[in-house]
């Protein structure tokens, strides 16, 4: 390791802060908390000087990799550049100094921003109402399925089957299981779409919902979406839209137009708020009018010129999160929405799709493209004939680190062998894409000419190849003093 843990830098008695004198009457902690809640051992906080602390974290930050440093084509994650204006807005003192218990009349600006964001997101997704509450994508999925469950219950229906395609994000079956449904998988056809005939066989009077991502995780538009929606609706089931791939379709089509009933979005993907350690996330959920009474409460509503938190929703599934969502994240997304506008958002999706198709065509002669169609905002590919050299996709991804890239998603979706999933996003220019494509070709050559070099990669990073197997089999999750 090139940098010790902060705990290893600790020396007894070394201090980096000076606390002001206490100006309120002190009370012993054992008078405030019951005995069984009191810590028995001393808290092992690191003891370091201010300078030690600053140097430690500055050194770590210089080893860090983010989209502000370089290209980050991590498929399914939409690691686009987040404009700094969004951070500026979220840092305005009028937002940062709010307290969640303030009276409504003193937070009208914040409530108006939430109200507008609800409406904009509803319009973009073709839904009738939106809740900003869920904390992130998977939490949005759970919220959506609980809404579906409550809706079915209110109609006196007992349906417990949720259908997911075999290309689905792993969160879809996990969410359905957590929400108490039985999960059934349908396979994909040779064009990478949901196999409509297989779906028809699975859908029945017990089907609560089909969870679908469109474009799907192969980066392909579900061409039979209208037919799929009909099959599910005709059987009395609902359609759930996993909004992870919304970056491909803004202003061009919408889940509502496709026939979906419930949608979650990832503000930290499509709507340009940071994620991947820079979070927190935010996963708003939208619904068609019939499902609106079941949304989590409170919703933000406008009553004449007054904005308020609305709790009078007797059928609501309740609260999904403390207070009023990841408010700072909503401020960033709102800033992005109004700075892009209608024309800008459409252009975002057009460029996201154009960039992905350009990169796919640049790599097509060198990597196998299993579904040779126009892709949407991302595409899947896999290496040809490298297995004889013992070089796997994992090795190629590790070698990309040496070239200064965050590698694409690998080994997902599960239905394509040794897969790589690339999503360049709309914010990259042609030069970056060309250079990346050239370097991927170079790495593929290395894999043939000098496979050992690729298999031992990365060579130029602060730490080399990590032992992921031991880390997974015997994880050490907590520092303990040697």
């Amino acid at each position: 390791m090139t940098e010790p843990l902060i705990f290893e830098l600790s020396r007894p008695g070394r201090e980096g802060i000076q606390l002001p004198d206490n100006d309120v009457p002190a009370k012993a902690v054992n008078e405030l908390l019951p005995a069984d809640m009191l810590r028995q051992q001393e808290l092992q906080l690191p003891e370091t000087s201010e300078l030690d602390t600053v140097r430690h974290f500055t050194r770590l930050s210089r080893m860090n990799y983010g989209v502000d440093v370089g290209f980050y084509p991590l498929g399914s994650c939409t690691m686009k550049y987040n404009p700094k204006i969004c951070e500026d807005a979220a840092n305005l003192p009028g937002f940062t100094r709010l307290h969640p218990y303030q009276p409504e009349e003193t937070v009208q600006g914040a409530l108006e921003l939430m109200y507008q964001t609800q409406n904009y997101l509803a319009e973009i997704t073709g839904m009738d109402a939106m809740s900003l509450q869920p904390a992130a994508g998977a939490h949005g999925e759970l919220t959506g399925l609980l809404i579906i469950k409550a809706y079915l219950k209110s109609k006196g229906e007992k349906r417990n089957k949720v259908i997911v395609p075999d290309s689905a994000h792993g969160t879809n079956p996990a969410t359905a299981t957590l929400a108490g449904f039985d999960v059934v998988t349908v396979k994909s056809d040779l064009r990478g779409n949901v196999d409509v005939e297989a779906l028809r066989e699975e859908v029945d009077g017990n089907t609560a919902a089909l969870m679908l991502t469109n474009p799907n995780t192969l980066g392909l538009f579900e061409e039979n979406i209208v037919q799929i929606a009909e099959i599910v609706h005709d059987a009395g089931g609902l359609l759930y839209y996993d909004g992870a791939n919304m970056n491909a379709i803004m202003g061009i089509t919408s889940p509502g137009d496709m026939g979906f009933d419930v949608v979650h979005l990832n503000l930290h993907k499509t709507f340009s708020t940071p994620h991947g350690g820079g979070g927190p996330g935010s996963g708003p959920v939208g619904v068609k009018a019939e499902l609106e009474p079941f949304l989590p409460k409170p919703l933000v509503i406008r009553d004449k010129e007054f904005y308020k938190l609305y709790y009078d929703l007797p059928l609501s599934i309740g609260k999904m999160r403390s207070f009023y969502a990841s408010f700072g994240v909503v401020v960033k997304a709102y800033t992005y929405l109004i700075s892009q506008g209608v024309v800008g958002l459409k252009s975002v999706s057009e460029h996201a799709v154009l960039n992905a198709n350009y990169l796919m065509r640049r790599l097509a002669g060198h990597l196998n493209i299993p579904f040779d169609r126009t892709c949407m905002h991302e595409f899947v590919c896999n290496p040809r004939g490298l297995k004889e050299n013992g070089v796997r996709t994992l090795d190629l991804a590790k070698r990309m680190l040496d070239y200064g890239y965050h590698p694409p998603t690998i080994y997902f979706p599960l239905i394509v062998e040794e897969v790589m999933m690339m999503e360049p996003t709309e914010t990259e220019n042609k030069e970056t894409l060309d250079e990346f494509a050239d370097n991927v070709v170079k790495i593929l050559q290395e894999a043939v000419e000098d496979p050992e070099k690729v298999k031992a990669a990365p060579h130029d990073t602060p730490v080399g190849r990590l032992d992921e197997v031991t880390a997974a089999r015997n994880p050490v999750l907590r520092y303990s003093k040697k």
Partner: protein
Amino acid sequence: MSNIPEGLKYSKEHEWIRLEGNKATIGITDYAQDSLGDIVFVELPNIDDEFESDDVLGVVESVKAASDIYIPLSGKIVEINEELVDSPETINEDPYEKGWIVAIELSDTSQLADLLSKEDYEAFLEENA
């Protein structure tokens, strides 16, 4: 080319089945363990659990992915390989012997006709390569 021993039956979900009278021992094939990569965790059922064919019997997790293990035949669990709990890598090292996963008592021997022979499974792998 992956190892497909004689004398076993196979399923399209890449399980192998060793039959001894009314008892069937089940594991995952060499092809399956190779595709999964290093296995880091195995979730086993309990003794006496009953399953219908094609039910999910347990889960194998590798550094790449978590995958369901499907039971190719209906029956009741009579033995589980507890060694896999502490040493999941046994499946990678020896998928057909020490890496067995469960043994079941068959409840419907007519299902045996649906299983693949060594040759069928070989052909199935080639077809899907």
